[in-house]
């Protein structure tokens, strides 16, 4: 018999503690665990570390709420026509957020080191970049004598990976549609995997297509069903980006707006968010 992994969004968020390092799934405006991020803010979580190659709305709203202390990222932007992530930018410029800048593939190399169980992971490129110096990365020569030098990245092992999925089973098997972004690697590198999902699906359907499953049940610690959990971003195959939602987030810098934004997000109105 399988144990159910199902919990509420509130319980899921309570499994994340102040100061935890979080590997967030998705990329920029797409399939990020944005409802969970908002729940962390509503429940007053602080001093978080965010690990994500290309965060946007998620890291920006965490900076806006003062919930994040450290970040390891490759590129941070709101994307589309929206440019900079303004609260993130302010947080770095004011010294409130400590940034460890990566190239996306060096962040992946660190996650691979953790996933592969090795003390470092070689990565191509990087030569001549000031990022390497800034992070005190080592460059080693090929021990097999090719004469080539190679940068090596230390492990990046998030306390918790949080991903937003299209479908999951009660037992915690997880499926996404379209690109998995970095989510597969992220779930292999982290110590714990938490999932929000658009909907639950009978496991017989997963058994028909096991090769479509991104995360198997034994790796998943808990699942919460959160329709529109990636709003205002997109989640295949259910909805696209809510550009007006992003616009209004950026156009209203007041604290009142942030409160309203958090109070009125889809996960606070499950009856409206549920899908046909």
């Amino acid at each position, binding site marked *: 018999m399988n144990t159910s992994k199902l919990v509420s969004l509130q319980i899921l968020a309570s499994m994340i503690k102040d100061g935890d390092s979080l590997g967030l799934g998705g*990329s920029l405006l797409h399939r990020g665990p944005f409802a969970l991020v908002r729940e962390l803010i509503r429940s007053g979580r602080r001093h978080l570390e965010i690990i994500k190659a*290309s965060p946007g709305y998620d890291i920006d709203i965490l900076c806006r709420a003062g919930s994040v202390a450290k970040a390891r990222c490759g590129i941070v932007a709101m994307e589309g026509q929206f440019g900079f992530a303004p609260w993130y*930018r302010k947080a770095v410029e004011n010294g409130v957020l400590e940034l460890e800048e990566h190239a996306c593939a060096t962040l*992946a190399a660190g996650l691979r080191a953790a996933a592969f169980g090795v003390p470092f992971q070689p990565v191509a490129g990087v030569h001549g970049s000031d990022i390497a110096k800034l992070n005190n990365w080592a460059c080693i020569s090929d021990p097999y004598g090719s004469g080539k030098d190679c940068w090596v990245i230390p492990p990046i092992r998030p306390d918790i990976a949080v991903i937003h999925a299209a479908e999951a089973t009660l037992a915690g098997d997880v499926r996404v549609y379209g690109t998995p972004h970095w989510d597969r690697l992220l779930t292999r590198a982290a110590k714990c995997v938490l999932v929000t999902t658009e909907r639950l699906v009978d496991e017989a359907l997963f058994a028909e297509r096991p090769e479509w499953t991104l995360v198997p049940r034994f790796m998943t610690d808990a699942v919460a069903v959160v329709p529109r959990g990636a709003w205002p971003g*997109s989640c295949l195959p259910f909805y696209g980006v809510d550009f007006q939602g992003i616009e209004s987030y950026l156009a209203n810098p007041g604290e009142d707006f942030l409160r309203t934004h958090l109070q009125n997000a889809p996960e606070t109105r499950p009856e409206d968010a549920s899908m046909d």
Partner: protein
Amino acid sequence: MSEDARFTPFAFLVINLARFILPGEITFSGVNSSLPMLACLLAKKSYDFHFTYINVAGGVDAVPASAPLSSSDPQLAVGSCSIFANEDFYDLCCRGRMGLCFLGAAQVDGAGNTNMSCIGDPHSPKVRLPGGGGAAVMLPVAQRAVIWRTEHSTRTLVEKLDFTTAAGGAHGLVTPYAVFEKIGGRLALKYRNKGITPAEVRKRTGFTFDAADAAPVPLPTQRELGALKALDPNGLFAAGAGIRLW
């Protein structure tokens, strides 16, 4: 309207990015890269040769119904017969099989290195920029990398970068006014936009460059302009591109 009148700074940028694509090669557009995305889609519509277009949404020669505002939108995988995701395309690039990738930059120097990180002390930056994304890894290992910049000025095209995010020297650089291509390790002026003299380009460029072979740009073809119109029917990309003239 005459063809050259429609060669706006925006069209100049997109079409000249597209013209870097070579027959048979693998070409890539990434996150936060609307103009390279448009260039790749435009090349598919305008040129008769085959090339492989992969993108950050996992699409391989996808056929999206329209160009999405977000250059990483899942729509960019519509019609694709596979999802070639992040780990796959970075590894492909790292093992030397990426023919051409397009990279953004806040600052570019005359050797084709870029800054996308910060202005001022990196530990306490005056301006925190978005970051280079894949650039520090991709620029040195892609067969060719072409930089795109929507502002052509002495603060964006600089003699010395505030910070080197990605080194290795890009093959080309396209701005709304000029196309540079690497000759002997330095970016040299190849084309200038219509009505722009080499002296004007020099005045607005912070790095020194060779202009011996510079020529007026070949005018856009009907197919190029038609494809751009089809990709941006309401001018949303043109309006939102943040093109800044000197």
